[in-house]
């Protein structure tokens, strides 16, 4: 049992140890395996293959397990390290301590959007992007996308999602107009709503975080820890609500074989959503 903290409350030493563990995973090659895994499981809902990670009810449990695997890897380097969370409704400016020199470094510079401050700046010699979307070997960020401005989601927007009493709804994909899952995952639906919460944060950071290799930016983990916390908050707000769908779609349903019901094992770990609903014996949020 360990605690995941709000990143704004980390001590200087805690930040240093977390950064050190991340850099060691990068050095050993383990970090890039996590980046690759996320990219490989990016299956869209136009495809007929199973999609455990995105545009799907198991968005929350898949990423919970993914974060647990990453956290376990960090802890093999430093057993005292856990993944903190970034509440982007609260620390919502480029001036937040999250982006300081002693933690994740700041925005990318004009032009090539290269992150040039903090421990993940290319010039520091410890953060070389190996298989990004671009030829560049440096981490890229473009806060707020000035070319077509994006804002971080507000507390009101998160609260609206938390207020939905149903976990997920047909068609169980990026077009689900109701349900907590897609309100947080945040797929824009023409005529219904724009890009929201989880997706919008990826957009706001921009650069590496906007693309296929988004975990190349270490803020990925802090963002997803907050997404994970929101799932827990939703469960507490709706104690009688359940993960849906609770059974596989019927024969003839277009989502049959493509989504993961409560007891369907998710690749690559063969973990069922039902095994990931309650994290209270592993960690807690403080």
């Amino acid at each position, binding site marked *: 049992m360990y605690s995941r903290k709000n990143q704004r409350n980390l001590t200087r030493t805690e930040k240093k140890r977390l950064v050190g563990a991340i850099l060691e995973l990068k050095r050993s090659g383990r970090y890039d395996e996590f980046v*690759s895994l996320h990219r490989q499981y990016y299956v869209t809902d136009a495809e*007929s293959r199973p999609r455990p990670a995105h545009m799907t009810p198991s968005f929350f449990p898949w990423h919970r397990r993914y974060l647990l695997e990453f956290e376990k890897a960090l802890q093999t380097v430093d057993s005292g390290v856990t993944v903190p969370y970034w509440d982007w409704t609260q620390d919502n400016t480029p001036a937040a301590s999250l982006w300081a020199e002693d933690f994740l470094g700041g925005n990318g510079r004009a032009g*090539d959007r290269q992150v040039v401050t903090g421990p993940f700046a290319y010039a520091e010699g410890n953060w070389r992007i190996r298989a990004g*979307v*671009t030829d560049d070997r440096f981490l890229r960020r473009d806060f707020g996308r000035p070319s077509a401005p994006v804002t971080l989601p507000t507390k009101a927007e998160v609260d609206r999602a938390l207020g939905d009493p149903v976990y997920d709804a047909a068609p169980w994909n990026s077009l689900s107009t109701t349900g907590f899952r897609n309100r947080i995952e945040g797929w824009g639906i023409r005529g219904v709503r724009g*890009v929201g919460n989880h997706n919008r944060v990826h*957009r706001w950071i921009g650069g590496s975080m906007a*693309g296929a290799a988004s975990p190349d930016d270490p803020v990925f983990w802090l963002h997803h820890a907050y997404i994970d916390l929101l799932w827990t908050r939703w469960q507490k707000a709706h104690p009688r609500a359940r993960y849906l769908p609770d059974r596989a779609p019927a024969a003839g349903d*277009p989502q049959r074989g493509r989504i993961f019901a409560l007891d369907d094992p998710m690749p690559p770990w063969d973990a069922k959503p039902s095994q990931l609903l309650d994290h209270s014996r592993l960690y807690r949020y403080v």
Partner: protein
Amino acid sequence: MDPTTATDGTTATAVPPADTPHSPDATPAGAPGRHRPARRAVLRTAFTAAVVAGTGGVLAPVLFKDPGTPGRGERRSQAPERFSERYRGRDIRGGVSGLVPAGGQARPGEAAAASTATVAEVTIDGRPLHVMRRADGSYLSEVNHYESFPTLLETARAAVDELGTAQLSATTPHTI
């Protein structure tokens, strides 16, 4: 698009990517980082959703005379998209370049009823931009993974916006 035009016995299954050695029942992604797709597989992306349901299989490239016209988001399903322009100093090209018939049933309840797999190619300064689709027929690219666009042109432009001065990777998008 009228989904009923797409029930012609063709399939919702995309052309198997050259980099996927697994059966459709295998895990969606397979073993991490083990395979390198053929270059052709990078350039060509198979889609499951019908762009031109009901045209009978031959696509006539159509030039967008004014791609900037508002309302282009409501893409005419009969007009396969093809474009070539300078955008913010970058050469962007793209279009649906083929129609790949396949076997199977269209799936009800999907906005872009998948009946024929189309192949789209988008390049930025000559380098391939990997493009995917959502169930509503909109497009995502490897550069913008968390939002989608009604047309390939908008997808390409958004990728340029996101790239800044960066060039797309000259190597494959799926491997480390």
